[in-house]
């Protein structure tokens, strides 16, 4: 097969940009699954919710979707804390996390998705923003702004999260709660409250990821399903609980998917992420940067 260098470069660049976006999508799961051990399989549904909220406000008021998502952060945070409270009372107290918790979130995924279908219908929705059309050109390589802006936003998001987790007391407490809950209690921090904050942050990231998603591609409610596998694949590949790992893994996955799409056809793309997930789980469950 004649591999044109330009095509390859474009595929890699597209993959990197896509990877940045995937990182934003995965950030929430990295926190909830990586640090709190909560398998929030409904996370993509919340992202779609974020997309739709960005869509409505963009259509009605013409405000840029990313701005909308930042404004909606507190609302999503509250939603996250509420869900965690229900989760905690129903499952963690009784120590039955695995089956019931999974089923709970699975049910939540469906409920959210179907509610969106009932309210919005299954038409594809997309937003208007000034950077959706044009691209930057460097030599023979294109940088569509539609992908570049979300990628940069995602990197900023990651930078902020990383600072939060390493520099603030609450952030470090979140890292601690995943390592040793009892020790945390002895340090006079309430682990339940910490976990609640962490889960709230996790859902809040979905708000931003949702806005980024609808910038990159038109959205309809079942789009979230493709992301379930990607998100967990990235988490596991990067190593649970490691934010830098998640970023690297997301970029890797983005590049792999992009190259597969470009050279083998887009219908194979889902198999790449899920297949990689299976391979990682089979051979190196700790991931690249795992503890």
């Amino acid at each position, binding site marked *: 097969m004649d591999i044109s260098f330009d095509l390859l470069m474009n595929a890699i660049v597209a993959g990197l940009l896509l990877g940045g976006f995937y990182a934003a999508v995965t950030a929430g799961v990295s926190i909830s*699954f990586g640090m709190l*051990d909560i*398998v929030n*399989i409904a996370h993509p549904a919340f992202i779609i919710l974020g997309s739709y909220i960005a869509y409505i406000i963009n259509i009605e008021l013409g405000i840029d979707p990313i701005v909308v998502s930042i404004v909606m952060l507190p609302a999503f945070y509250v939603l996250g804390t509420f869900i965690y409270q*229900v989760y905690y009372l*129903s499952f963690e107290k*009784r120590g*039955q996390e*695995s*089956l*019931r918790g*999974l*089923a*709970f979130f*699975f*049910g*939540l*995924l*469906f*409920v959210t*998705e*179907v*509610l969106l*279908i*009932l309210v919005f219908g299954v038409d594809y929705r997309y937003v208007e923003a000034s950077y959706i059309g044009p691209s930057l050109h460097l030599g023979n390589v294109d940088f569509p702004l539609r992908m570049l802006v979300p990628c940069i936003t995602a990197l900023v998001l990651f930078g902020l999260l990383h600072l939060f987790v390493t520099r603030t007391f609450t952030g470090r407490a979140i890292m601690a709660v995943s390592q040793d809950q009892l020790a945390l209690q002895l340090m006079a921090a309430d682990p339940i409250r910490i976990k609640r904050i962490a889960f709230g942050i996790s859902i809040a990231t979905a708000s931003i990821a949702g806005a980024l998603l609808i910038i990159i591609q038109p959205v309809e409610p079942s789009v979230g*399903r493709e992301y*379930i*596998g990607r998100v*967990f*694949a990235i988490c*596991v590949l990067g190593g649970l609980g490691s934010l830098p790992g998640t970023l690297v893994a997301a970029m890797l996955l983005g590049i792999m998917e992009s190259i597969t799409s470009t050279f083998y*056809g887009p*219908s*194979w793309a*889902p*198999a790449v992420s*899920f*297949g990689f*997930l*299976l391979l990682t*789980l*089979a051979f190196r*469950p700790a991931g690249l940067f795992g503890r």
Partner: protein
Amino acid sequence: MLVGLVVYVSGHLLGIGYLFFAGYTILQFIVLASAWNILGGYCGYVNFGSAAFFALGAYSTVFFYKFNPLPIPILIILGAVVSGIVGFGMGYLTLRLRGAFFAIATLAMAVVLQTLVVNWSYVGGSRGAYIVRADTVDIGGYTIEYIEYLFLLMMAVAILSIVISRTIARTQLGFGFATIRDDELAAEASGVPTLRLKLIATTISGALMGMAGAPFPYYIGYLQPASAFGLEYGVNSIAMPIIGGTTSWVGPVIGAILLGSLQQIATVTISSAVNLLIVGLLLVAFVVIAPNGLVGLIQDRLRARRDGK
């Protein structure tokens, strides 16, 4: 079991055509739910990929149909074999993973299989595949509608799956499964061959789901990957056992009948999107409030009454 048989036979005698369509779906879900429960309820391993085994059964039917149309009972057995093998393979790859990872891996497997089928144009790929079916069937001198034939076949499969899950629950195999669910490490330490038991569970579970899927192309006439592998089957096959009760063979059956009927009624009266909403809401509600399902609630009430005296 005899009661079930009587009920179903009387259902068969009613002449309303739609009842057979609806009944087929419910029977199909009985099989799927019972099959899921063997791995999920008895062993405690949540399988999100039920759709994959179901779809494999359906696609193996399509595959053999393209060679040479075979009678459905044989197709059912073939579907069971195919899905059973895949179940075994999946088990071999993934059973070393603990709880959550296993569940995610099953989901991943389902999508990988779906992508393979989408790219395989012999069985129609994403174009889908048509199966032409006859209007009536001759059995031993009686001519019946095709859908009744499918219904009867499905009933046979359903009874088979109930018998299997009931038998497992009462034998050594079932006790082995229960020990895995309760504390796998302790079971392993006590000498229970957990890996072998788990493999048996995934194989049987997969085979039964394949059986449920094999007649599906004939039932629906047109098969495409997006719907056959859809998450709808996955969520239903999880919701029904959980709502009905995962600890015994009765649970999935009750769950399937209740939830299946509810969904059929909702599809006909309200809209077809709503039935998924119902499934999701009920699942969340039951998981939070009644973890052992309806069977569990009844058992608790019986126990309370017994203790109260």
